[in-house]
């Protein structure tokens, strides 16, 4: 078929082969994309498959990729267990407080750094970016020791309380959120706030009435980022909390569902899936904000 058209059509040959090339390129794209999609998606799918199985089926020598007797018992068991609900509650509280705190700190700071110059403000903007590059793995040991010393001085025990995470997580969220908010604020035309100031608005009014509404997409993106980071954080809760009732989801699932050498895989997978659900749901509805926040951090500035 293809060779016939190629020989027959003299003048239109070039165009014909190009569009055919494109068609083949497209087909190959789909084939390879399917392969990559399988690679990227099978772990969560396998989580879901396992979560529907009973322990008996998990340890049976049947095809692990198929559910023969689907059951919701793992979900029911976890969602009625006080322990799991405590983890969920702790995670939710920490995330909500951290997101609020992050926004309260980073929006005014970003406004000040983007629009109002003061002594050292450019250095501070660079410094904010540098702090974003300092990983949690460098800070957890000194922070652990700092909290212990703080308890010795004041008698207030910080270690092994879930709320200590509210003070620790902003170190991860605030620099990045400030950084992307500086980018968003800087992209707002100067005439807008100059007009507001001329009309007698204070700086705070300018921020709340003009910058916040205009930069709302950026604020949503930053909020989502802050939520995702605080929901997923694993090292700090592992280092700073140990009692069962003070754990957040990621550490709680790992420390309580794995009892000694007995792995209750059905429940572990169910817990992991439920723990991954909030970010996944947000992502499903607000994918574009999610992505713009991610790309803004590295492309703007």
């Amino acid at each position, binding site marked *: 078929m293809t060779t016939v058209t190629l020989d027959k059509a003299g003048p239109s040959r070039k165009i014909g082969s190009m569009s055919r090339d494109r068609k083949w390129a497209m087909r190959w794209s789909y084939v390879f994309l399917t392969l990559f999609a399988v690679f990227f998606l099978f772990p969560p799918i396998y*989580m879901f498959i396992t979560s529907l199985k009973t322990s008996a089926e998990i340890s049976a020598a049947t095809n692990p990729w198929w559910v023969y007797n689907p059951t919701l018992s793992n979900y029911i068991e976890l969602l009625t267990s006080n322990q799991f609900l405590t983890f969920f509650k702790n995670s939710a509280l920490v995330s909500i407080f951290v997101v609020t705190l992050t926004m309260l700190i980073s929006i005014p700071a970003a406004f000040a750094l983007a629009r109002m110059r003061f002594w050292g403000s450019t250095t501070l903007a660079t410094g904010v970016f*540098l702090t974003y590059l300092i990983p949690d793995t460098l800070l957890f040991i000194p922070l652990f020791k700092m909290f212990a010393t703080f308890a010795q001085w004041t008698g207030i025990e910080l270690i092994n309380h879930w709320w200590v995470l509210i003070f620790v997580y*902003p170190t991860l969220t605030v620099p990045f959120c400030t950084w992307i908010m500086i980018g968003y604020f800087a992209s707002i035309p100067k005439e807008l706030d100059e007009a507001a100031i001329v009309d007698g608005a204070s*700086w705070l009014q300018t921020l709340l009435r003009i910058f916040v509404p205009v930069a709302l997409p950026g604020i949503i993106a930053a909020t989502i980022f802050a939520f995702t980071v605080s929901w997923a954080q694993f090292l700090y809760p592992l280092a700073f909390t140990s009692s069962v009732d003070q754990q957040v989801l*990621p550490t709680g699932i790992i420390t309580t569902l794995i009892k000694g050498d007995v792995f209750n895989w059905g429940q*572990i997978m169910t817990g992991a899936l439920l723990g991954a659900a909030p970010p996944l749901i947000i992502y499903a509805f607000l994918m574009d904000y999610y992505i713009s926040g991610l790309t803004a951090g*590295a492309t703007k500035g």
Partner: protein
Amino acid sequence: MVDAAQSMTQPIRARTTRSGLRKFLERKSTIAFFMALPLMLLIAIMVIYPAFYSLHLATLNKSMQRFVGFGNFTFLFKRETFWMVVQQSCFFAITAVIFKALIGFVVAHLVHNLPDKGQRKWRGMLLVPWVIPPAMSTLAWLWLFDPSYSAFNWILAQVGIGPIPWTGDASWARFSVILVNIWAGAPFFLIMYLAALKSVPEQLYEAAAIDGANWWQRIWYITLPMMRNIIAITTLFSLIVTFANFDIVRILTAGGPLDKTHLFATWAFRIGIEGNDIPLGASISLFMVPILAIAAVFILRDINKRGNEA
């Protein structure tokens, strides 16, 4: 309150000092300073102070009562495990970043080839690994790598290949942690490259097509130069994050077998928190600083360059 009381008794003087104070408070730079103050306090107390405090901690002995200078570092240099961790951290970070960048580049091109309508759907699916908290998705991998019930080994058994000790054998465990890291990190590259690809003007490709350039030449002479900045900055970012990785190795192998898969972060946690030797743990984690500093210098240079262009 005090101000009000003063102004009652000494109306004139109070008014002048108050207006001076008010003028100071109403100055733009003062307001800006107070708006940025919480940020500065947070960074100073929770980031900069701990960073220097860990330098101080690294010079103490295990009970943190005696100054030992570089004692912890010389102790580390003499330990074989330390050099193994250095080697493994570098190998892990470099291999994982190279593969993440390659996969991200290829998949970004594949998605970019699709008609605009379908792109959203594929992008949505391909980004899922990046959205799931790493601690959760690593649990799925741990279960896939299970010594007795591994679902991979089941598939391999169907084609007659014997069970693979995914996390039991040192080389396989190294392979496994890198594989999971690639899986979790490639979507980040994908999304950055896709955004960069969209910013390359279509006319350049049209001009190249008229000049008779093949796809390889188009990539080499147009796409790569146009994306150079994004590729550099994404790679540096990822290098930092991968080098400082904790979650994946901790959950998958916890450093085992025989400390063969430890990274700086996981080893520092093992020694510093679990082993209760905070100074030694701090010394280990400080070895992440040089690579971070180098990457930071390059990223900053790039940002300043772009700032000047704009």
